């Protein structure tokens, strides 16, 4: 199984604070991989480094075999590597349907095609995906009027609309009503299996990530602490110490 994402010795500092230090990891194509770690361990910074939010101080990031650490966010996104945000980000003054319609893949958009109307196929696809995430009934509401959990689902739907090859999810279950978490996990698996989208997930909810991910990386203090299958991680004393705050 060839890795779709390879992160090699990535280093990022803010002022004097080291947020990521020499992190090396890889995500195989078609899998679900988890990223865990206590608060402030550098998970979101790593996501930002991967998708091009800031310049990394050292190391390399390869997506599908090509170096992307010099590219900016939109170009990386057009290659099929997409992320969602911990604090959800949707287009608040647009309706849910419009949010979906503008999230179509941008790879083949040319100057002329941006002036055209969205094809009808886009609309039916958007409606199907809205139904998939359970927001069909609210499709004409302004996205900003949805609850936090609904916005999260919408953002997920938008990411799917973009037909990415790989999706970086930053805490997909945070803020979601616990009774709905199972449904979400079910959807994530379906996405992974049916749409063949590789998932790389930051998650705090241990039971979720343990049942979802096939392989897990754990960060602490900006460094890679441990890696392995869920059962290995669960048994790893260093991970337990990190979470309990015992140093």
């Amino acid at each position, binding site marked *: 199984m060839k890795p779709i994402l390879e992160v090699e010795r990535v280093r990022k500092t803010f002022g004097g604070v080291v947020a990521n230090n020499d992190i090396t990891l890889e995500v195989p194509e078609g899998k679900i991989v988890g990223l865990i770690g206590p608060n402030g361990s550098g998970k979101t910074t790593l996501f930002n480094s991967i998708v*091009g*939010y*800031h*310049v990394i101080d050292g190391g390399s990031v390869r997506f599908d075999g090509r170096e992307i650490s010099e590219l*900016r*966010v939109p170009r990386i996104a057009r290659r099929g590597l997409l992320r969602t945000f911990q604090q959800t980000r949707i287009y608040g003054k647009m309706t849910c349907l419009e949010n979906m319609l503008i999230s179509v893949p941008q790879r083949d958009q040319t100057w002329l095609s941006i002036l055209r109307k969205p094809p009808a196929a886009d609309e039916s696809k958007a409606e199907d995906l809205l139904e998939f995430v359970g927001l069909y009934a609210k499709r004409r509401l302004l996205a900003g009027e949805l609850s936090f959990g609904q916005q999260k689902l919408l953002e997920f739907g938008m990411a799917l609309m973009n037909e990415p090859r790989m999706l970086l999810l930053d805490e997909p279950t945070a803020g979601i009503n616990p009774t709905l978490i199972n449904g979400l996990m079910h959807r994530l698996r379906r996405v992974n299996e049916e749409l063949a989208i590789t998932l790389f997930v930051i998650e705090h909810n241990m039971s979720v990530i343990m049942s979802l991910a096939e392989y897990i990386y754990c960060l602490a203090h900006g460094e890679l602490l441990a890696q392995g299958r869920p059962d290995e991680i669960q048994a790893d004393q260093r991970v337990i110490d990190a979470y309990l705050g015992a140093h």
Partner: protein
Amino acid sequence: MSNLLIGAVFALAAYGMALVWGVMNVVNICQGEFVMLGGYTAYFLFKAGVHPLVGIPVAAVLLFVFGWLLYRAVIFRVVDKDLFISILATFGLSILLQQLANQLFGADVRTADAGFRTLFFFDNMVTVSVVKIVAFGAALLVGAILMLFLKKSRLGQAIRATAQNARAARIMGIDTGRVYATTYALNAAICGAAGALVAMTWLIHPYLGLPYTVRSFMIVILAGLGNVAAVLAAGLGLGAAENFAGFILGAEYQSAFVFALLVAILLWRRFWLDRTRGYLK
């Protein structure tokens, strides 16, 4: 010398703008109109026989009251709104004040000649008018008083606390409404003092405000909010650059140069940040 003085006056107005911007998140477009009103205060006092130097504190006090009233009447409504709303609202105020001044005082060009002498050096090749030195000193003094006030006084500390975090300040029992009103009034007072300096060194008319507003803007952007030394440096630098441009390129391109410089500085910062995948926000 002339450059330094105009720079100091710009710096005063800019400092007031930075204060209001930083504390209240309001961009005050009628900055230049406060300068204009300060100038008229000094002018009318001068007509009544009061020395323009005395006019400086009087203008500051009058404008303080005016700023306070303006805050209570209008500005408090735009404090929590989008920055753009405050830009438009104060733009409306600026038109209003300009036109009222035009109607009340007439559009005549006025000047309050303080009667200071000019010093001459090197066979008259270098001239320094005393009024400009005095005005420059006064500008520095106003700046110093302001800094002391913000640093030492209780109200000044409240202002700084509010600038840091208005919500926290409110929880700590600071009356932010009062802080805002004071800040805005202080700004008006600074501009009023600057206006009195303008009246005694150059000339005043109802439409003189715009250059001061625009240059305050530029200086604040260059220097950032809340850095007094940088504001002063940027103000003096701008004054010098402008005069120099007038000297080299001819006076017709003097303003063009300043505005082009503003755009150039912003573009430079943008492309510089671009390399770091950042944005100028």
